[in-house]
């Protein structure tokens, strides 16, 4: 990590190798398009490489990288004019018929969530970030984040109810 901060490209490549799985997974959940997710993951790593010297604590790299990825996704969402403000009006309909289907259906259920809710739910339940950390990463008010996590989580539970 410290080597990468001094500009060692091979050290940074090793960081990419170690972190790519989780970062690409996170962005795939947010994008629902593997190819686009990989493009955004690449953009996130390049952005991280450019601003790596600003990172104060090397131990915080994982969380910081997730924040970079979230900001990259938000920029993409604004460019693509995704509706981040309004709540999805989809009806709560059960998706899963058994526990075995739940994993497959999690992806389908995430797809049905409003992008803002999806982001908050994935960051909270999938990445284990606190509401405050999500608010920091997105720049949204804490109350908005809490509301997105609560509503999005409730919808997922409704949809995934066996």
């Amino acid at each position: 990590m410290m080597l990468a901060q001094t500009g060692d490209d091979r050290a940074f490549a090793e960081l990419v190798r170690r972190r790519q799985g989780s970062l690409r997974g996170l962005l795939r959940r947010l994008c629902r398009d593997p190819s686009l997710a990989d493009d955004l993951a690449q953009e996130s790593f390049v952005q991280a490489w450019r601003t790596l010297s600003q990172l104060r604590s090397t131990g915080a790299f994982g969380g910081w990288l997730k924040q970079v990825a979230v900001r990259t996704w938000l920029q993409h969402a604004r460019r693509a004019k995704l509706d981040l403000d309004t709540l999805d009006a989809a009806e709560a309909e059960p998706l899963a018929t058994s526990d075995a289907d739940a994993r497959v259906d999690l992806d389908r259920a995430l797809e049905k969530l409003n992008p803002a809710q999806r982001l908050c739910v994935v960051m909270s339940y999938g990445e284990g970030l606190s509401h405050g950390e999500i608010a920091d990463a997105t720049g949204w008010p804490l109350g908005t984040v809490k509301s997105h996590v609560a509503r999005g989580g409730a919808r997922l539970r409704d949809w995934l109810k066996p």
Partner: protein
Amino acid sequence: MSDDDNDLKRLFAESSLVPTDDAFVARVETAIAWRRRQPALIAACAIALATLLVWATWPAAYQLTGWMRDGLLFLGPFFSSVEGHVAVVALLATGIAWTWLHERFGNAYRD
């Protein structure tokens, strides 16, 4: 944390991570190498463009500079002659008159 929350977390944890892919690492390395070269490339393009611009416009720029110099050489003696003084006074008088007339009657043309 409720059981429902834990169930959701378990579901997220069980869904598979993207496997490590060396092609993706190579892709990022290529993108970083390109970014590293970008400032030098932009500087080289800017210098090439400036050179091209100077080369393409040199005859016109040269002629324009000559005209400006000739014009100054012509206007210098003119403004130090009686005719030049008269021309300056006429210009100033016209400007003052136009300003005064505009202030006095300008409102007549407004709605």
